[in-house]
């Protein structure tokens, strides 16, 4: 197109502008490339910034405190003591009581809770009238705050005029001082935990169950498998990763158990986990050390010990998971 060429020349931008335009083009493309490469980082940055400020920094600072002598009455005075605080808690029999209590209450609440959740999810997976209603109802306890749940259950488990003792006395089973006993107090706390978290786990299981392809069940029923056999041979194996997930979540949850034991009796006794520390969990131990006794160094050391314990439990979980996977193949 020879005719159009001069016209184009005539309208061409003045020479000095040309390099600028070129520059802008490269600038723009460079920006575009930068955008392409950098924006993903920018998009995920908020999490890491928040995590850095509210997760990592406190974690490291807690570690720093754990190596110092710091008192609640003088936060600005820190005195380097090295590993003394760790030494101190590891040689404290109360620490080991708290470890075993945490472990026992963890098992006593997690195992029944997950089994019941599995059963409930299986039931909810049937075609039901008003299924949304039942699913909502089952999640209600989870929506209740720990404090109110624990306070209500504290009334239920009260030794003197508690609801449960009243009922037990009615059928002639005498009365029990629930918070006072070594096992009864753990049972009481486990009941609160089970009540609160079963619905939550049920819904997770239910979601996983609904993702199981229905032809698996059809094939199974064609083969003459009963409902129970279908549950055992189809549902459970398909749910294995979900079950592992709920176990991990529940383990972390029971490690951090705090509100339920604190409020079971409340007051001074709650803060030391009962008069013989019979239901003192690690979180309560930490709280008592830091806030009642005012020694923040050992309290920080407990926090790090809890992290170490969680990592150990996670490693054991992982090993078991690998073993289960291998043996399943």
């Amino acid at each position: 197109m020879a005719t159009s060429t001069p016209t184009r020349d005539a309208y061409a931008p003045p020479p000095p502008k040309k390099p600028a335009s070129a520059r802008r083009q490269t600038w723009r493309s460079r920006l575009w490339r930068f955008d392409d490469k950098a924006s993903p980082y920018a998009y995920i940055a908020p999490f890491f910034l928040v995590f850095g400020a509210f997760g990592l920094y406190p974690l490291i600072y807690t570690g720093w405190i754990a190596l110092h002598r710091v008192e609640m009455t003088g936060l600005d005075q820190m005195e380097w003591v090295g590993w003394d605080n760790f030494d101190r808690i590891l040689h404290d029999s109360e620490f080991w009581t708290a470890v075993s209590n945490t472990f026992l209450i963890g098992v006593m609440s997690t195992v029944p809770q997950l089994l019941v959740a599995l059963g409930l999810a299986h039931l909810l997976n049937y075609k039901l009238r008003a299924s949304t209603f039942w699913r909502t109802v089952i999640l209600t306890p989870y929506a209740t705050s720990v404090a109110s749940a624990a306070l209500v259950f504290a009334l239920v488990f009260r030794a003197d005029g508690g609801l449960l003792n009243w009922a037990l006395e009615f059928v002639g089973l005498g009365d029990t001082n629930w918070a006072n006993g070594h096992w009864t107090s753990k049972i009481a706390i486990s009941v609160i935990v089970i009540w609160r978290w079963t619905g939550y786990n049920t819904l997770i299981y239910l979601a996983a169950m609904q993702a199981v392809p229905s032809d698996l069940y059809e094939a199974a029923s064609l083969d003459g498998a009963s409902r129970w056999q279908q549950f055992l041979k189809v549902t459970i194996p398909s749910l294995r990763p979900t079950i592992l997930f709920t176990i991990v979540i529940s383990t972390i949850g029971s490690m951090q158990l705090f509100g339920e034991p604190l409020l079971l009796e409340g007051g001074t006794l709650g803060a030391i986990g009962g008069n013989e520390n019979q239901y003192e969990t690690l979180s309560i131990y930490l709280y008592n050390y830091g806030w009642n006794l005012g020694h923040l160094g050992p309290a920080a050391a407990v926090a790090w010990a809890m992290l170490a314990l969680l990592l150990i439990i996670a490693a054991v979980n992982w090993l078991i998971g690998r073993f289960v996977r291998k043996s399943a193949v």
Partner: protein
Amino acid sequence: MRITRTVAGRSRRVAVLATTGLTATALLLTGCSSDSDSSDDTSSDANGKITLTVADFGQFGYKEAGLFAKYHELHPNITVKEDTTADEKVYYPKLLQQLNSGSGLADVQGLEVGRIKELVDTKADQFADLSKVIDVNEWVSWKEKQATTKDGKVIGAGTDIGPMSLCYNTELFKKAGLPTDRKEVAAKIAGGWEDYLALGEEYKKKAPAGTYFMDSASAMYNAVVSSNAKQYYDESGEAIYKDSPSVKQGWDLAAEAADKKLTQGLAQFSDPWKAALRKSTMATVACPAWMAGQISVNAGDANKGKWDITTAPGATAANWGGSFLGVPKAGKHVKEAGELVKWLTAPEQQAAVFKAIGSFPSNKGAYDLPDVKTAKLEYFNNAPIGELYADEAKSIPETVLGPKDGIIKDTISTQINNMEQRGTKPDDAWNAATNAIDKAIG
């Protein structure tokens, strides 16, 4: 540029959200009541009207005596709001946190005697010096010394003190065949706490079913220890509780009471303890003056007139408890708060509190006021408490305080509770107590 700005904006938002969330969680965890945090309440508005906040614990009795309303009448531009925490063991850690962060403090804070030494030692610079506002000579001499630093700064004005007496349930005494008259009861226990235990055994023989002679052995322990100048620390600040004669005497008596099953074994101020008062299942309570208020509130109107008050066993002068009012410097109205403290702890007001709930004045000026001198507690069968306490108050020994008095007392009480409730052997209980206390002190 655009990208970074959006991200920064978002991260700020997220950070704000996260901070709010964390703060909310922290508040929930620490059981904070946020009344004292709302800064709008404490700042003055255009008319110069201000709201002073008073944070305290247990029962200070100002509301019962109508003092805050009266102060508002006298100073129409000032409204006083009270934020009460039931349990001092919950109140104190919160106070320390607030002092550390310098926020959330009320204009006036109640300070318990078991904590005053620690506060004087470590936090004195955060409290306004009240020595210029109040006249320290008005108080019984030892009271204000407790809140005074080495360089003469006074961080708290004394509210009440706790001269010791014995509260007893006349109805239960009658049923068990014991005398109910104040003087006769006093005569039976005149020899000291051993007599008191002997009276307990006499009570037990004919006691109405389901009732006990005393509420808790730990209360008796505290009453015994309180009559001594040296308790848990010596003058040099060394913790001597392991060898302290008063601790040993109290502990042995408590172990004896637990062994003879004279006590219901209830931790004082706990819900079961309150329920036991309501149901009248315990015949006696070791009764520092402020305890009368606790009994009348928890036992309720149904038990009015059933209780009476007499002198403590052995009639040794003892002081158990008592508090102070301090003014944190971080408050917005330090000057006005100082004035309020001066007024609340003046003789007339202390007398009014005494009349309302029986907390005994620490201000000597109050002792000659008719409200104190001839005071009778209607709830307690018109017991002449003014007569009972005024003489005792003057002969109370000056006690040596230590920074961890409160925690030591609580820990020993818990272990005494284990002896009476769970049958823990005295030696095991003592070991458990010393372990826990060493942890607290160290």
